[in-house]
Structures are given as structure tokens and as C-alpha cells.
């Protein structure tokens, strides 16, 4: 019988090696897989490349991973926030490489990575400094920038409910990058609020089919604290 369930967050992340590229879900704190990030921090590896929409809030989660010096490079759309002080300090000190990507392009690059599309022409960022050095092309009278797919060795995501086959559903705007990252990572690891029996999820409403998920761990329905600001 297939079971992708692992006993703990620590077990789920224990083969992530130094130098891995790790996608981490979440838009701010919504959908942020806090327990998996904590386990990755505890696991102790470094030289990581992280893909996330932001670059950490406050001093926990992704911010703590950055603060512990485990991250070599971050690929994100919106690093600067009211509580991104850890990122800000490392970036200003030249201790963290930043690849800044428009949010929609980030999402689309991850989706392309999961769907086997190598590159695509997008109108976003044409004529801006974020397209500097990139191939451009006029297609049917409009200008586009060529962007390449993003894939990862691992994805850490947070879903609401999942079954042993890895089928996942999310809650509200905590869905955000989760389904995309699950598809684009070689090994997708999901923390879920609740593991349910196979057959309990409505097949019409499954958002991430189990084919995209390698491991899932129940973290007991804790909901993250909301933070305000950008």
C-alpha cells in the first residue's frame, strides 16, 4: 500500500543536502510551512538556494534560516518588508545573493518547471531593469521577454488536508505557491494540518494530485499567526 506519510518534519527533510535548491511556499506567513522550515534549520545544512515569494518575516521561519547563514542565494519577488530586517542586513552586507523576479513571472517560471516547458515569452518587465540582458522579441505587435523555467531539488509547502497518496487541498489564500512548487520540485514535501483517509477528499476539489507529492507530514492543525504590513 502506498503511503507517503512520514512521522515527523525532521524525518521529512533529513536528506536535503548542502547546496540544494529548495522552494518554500507561502505568501508572507499564509501557506508558509513553518514546521518544515524549522526542521530544515535544525537539520543544519547550508549553501542553500531558496525560492520564495518573500525573504523572511521577523526572526522565525525563513528569516531564521537566513539569519543562521544557511542560504547562499534567494530567488524572490518581494524581499523588502516592514519586518525583513534579517534579509536587509545580509543583503546590504553582501552576504546573500538576490535574484529579483516579478511575482507573476516567478509563479509562471515555477509552473513551467513543473510542466516541462523550458522557457516562455512574457510581456511582464519588458523595458525595465529586471529584463536587462534578457532576450526579447516582438510577437504580434507586442514586446516580450524570454524567461526560463525554475525547478528545485526540494519543495517545502503547507496544505490544509492530505491523504496517504499525497492528494492535497489548501485553505483560502494559503494556497498561493504550494501547488506550483509541488510540481516543480524533484521531492515535494507537504506539511498538512490534517491527514485524512483516502476517498475523503472530493476528487473534483483536489488541488494538488498526489503524483506531485513525495512526502507529507501532519503538524496538527496549527495555524500561523497573522502579521500585518507588507
Amino acid at each position, binding site marked *: 500500500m502506498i503511503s507517503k506519510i512520514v512521522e515527523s518534519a525532521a524525518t521529512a527533510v533529513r536528506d536535503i543536502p548542502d547546496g540544494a535548491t529548495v522552494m518554500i511556499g507561502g505568501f508572507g506567513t*499564509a501557506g508558509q510551512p513553518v514546521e518544515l522550515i524549522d526542521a530544515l534549520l535544525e537539520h543544519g545544512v547550508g549553501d542553500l538556494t531558496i525560492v520564495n515569494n518573500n525573504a523572511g518575516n521577523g526572526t522565525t521561519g525563513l528569516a531564521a534560516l537566513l539569519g543562521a547563514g544557511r542560504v547562499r542565494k534567494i530567488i524572490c519577488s518581494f524581499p523588502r518588508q516592514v519586518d525583513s530586517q534579517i534579509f536587509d542586513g545580509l543583503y546590504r552586507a553582501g552576504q546573500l545573493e538576490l535574484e529579483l523576479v*516579478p511575482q507573476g*513571472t516567478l509563479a*509562471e517560471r*515555477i509552473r513551467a518547471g513543473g510542466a516541462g516547458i523550458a522557457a516562455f515569452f*512574457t*510581456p511582464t518587465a519588458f523595458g525595465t531593469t529586471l529584463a536587462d540582458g534578457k532576450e526579447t522579441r516582438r510577437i504580434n505587435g507586442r514586446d516580450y521577454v524570454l524567461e526560463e523555467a525554475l525547478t528545485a531539488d526540494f519543495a517545502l509547502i503547507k496544505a490544509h488536508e492530505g491523504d496517504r497518496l499525497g492528494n492535497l487541498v489548501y485553505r*483560502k489564500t494559503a*494556497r498561493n505557491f504550494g501547488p506550483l512548487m509541488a510540481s516543480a520540485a524533484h521531492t515535494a514535501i507537504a506539511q498538512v494540518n490534517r491527514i485524512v483517509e483516502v476517498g475523503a477528499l472530493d476528487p473534483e476539489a483536489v488541488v494538488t494530485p498526489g503524483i506531485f507529492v513525495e512526502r507529507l507530514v501532519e503538524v496538527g492543525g496549527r*495555524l500561523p499567526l497573522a502579521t500585518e504590513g507588507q
Partner: protein
Amino acid sequence: MTVRTRGPLTRDDMARRVADDIREGAYVNLGIGLPTKVSDYLPSDREIILHTENGMLGMGPAAVGDEIDPDLLNAGKIPVTELPGASYFHHADSFGMMRGGHLDICVLGAFQVSTSGDLANWHTGGEDAIPAVGGAMDLAIGAKQVFVIMELFTKEGACKLVDECSYPLTGIGCVDTVYTDYAVFDITPRGVVAREIFGELGLDELAELTGLALSAD
């Protein structure tokens, strides 16, 4: 002429003026900051559907008290509510809605807008500034109509509607209308049209104040 940095309209007035131009049935994205205030003034007799980039259509007002759900945030990461008929989707679908031209209107703030509709609203270009673009570039190029809401002048008195943006661009030729504390400006192929001027200034005075070639509606 003395530096006049604030025009006749308050920020709330400006938001109300933008809201007046949003028609029944429109799908609308309101950017972070001043644009978010537009939602406070949407006419109650019009059904308008708000999109938030982080994966939702049918967003309701800010959540208060027991309504607060950490899984239900807007693009500014403020807890919000869900209206009947809402839907959730992932980020690629959400930005596909923008990029694919499905939103009727997006309302954005700006550092500068050029007379040809270029938008600069993501980065001051300062050497020590940490860049952060978020969804700004996607919003700028995606909606059928891009409205900018901003004060016409900086606190130092520099006009933010300019012949050419000096700040790094967010998008080229993408702005349709600029709602300011002095006037509503349409960016047209024939130049900038002051569609509506608030207060006592005339068109010529506004042209002199801004240093721009303006025409009336």
C-alpha cells in the same frame, strides 16, 4: 510661484473619485497603500469584484475581530474577508488573470507617471535601496485599464507626472488615467488630457504648475 505640494482633494477624496469611475460588474485589483483605500468608497449599488494577487476573486472588506483568519490575507498581507461567489486559485492562475488581460481595472500608486503612460512605482533607484517588485510589473501590463492614484507633487514640490520618468520603470506606456489631488488626467495618443480639474485652477495654470502640455477634455 510658491511650492504647492497638496491640491484640493484629500487622499480620501481621491480614492472616492477613483471609485466613482469603477463600473458595475468590473473585476478590479487594488494595489497596496493608497489604492486599497478605494475599496472604502466603492458605490454600494454597484457589484464590483475585487481580485487579490495572492489568489482570490470576491475579496471582501478587512477582517475584524473573530473574522480574522491567518489563511485569508490580501496582497498587503492584511486579514480580509470572503464574499459570496468568491473563488481561490494558485499564483500562476492569479497572475495569468492579470497578464492575460482579464482584469478590467487595476489601481496603482506611483512615484512617477510619464506623459506617454510609462509607470515608475517599484524602486527609487537609490543605491542603498533594497529592490522589491512583487506584483507591480504584472499589474502594470495586465489590466484592460490601469489607473494610477497619486498626489500630483512630491512633498518637495516636484511634479510626479513627467515627460520622462527618472525612476526605474515598472512598465512602458501602460497607464490610462492618473487620479491626483489636482485633476484627473487621461493619457491619450494625443497627449495628456485634463479630463477634470478640481478646485480653482484653470487648465493653463495647471499646465504651468506641472510644466506639461495639457489639453482639456
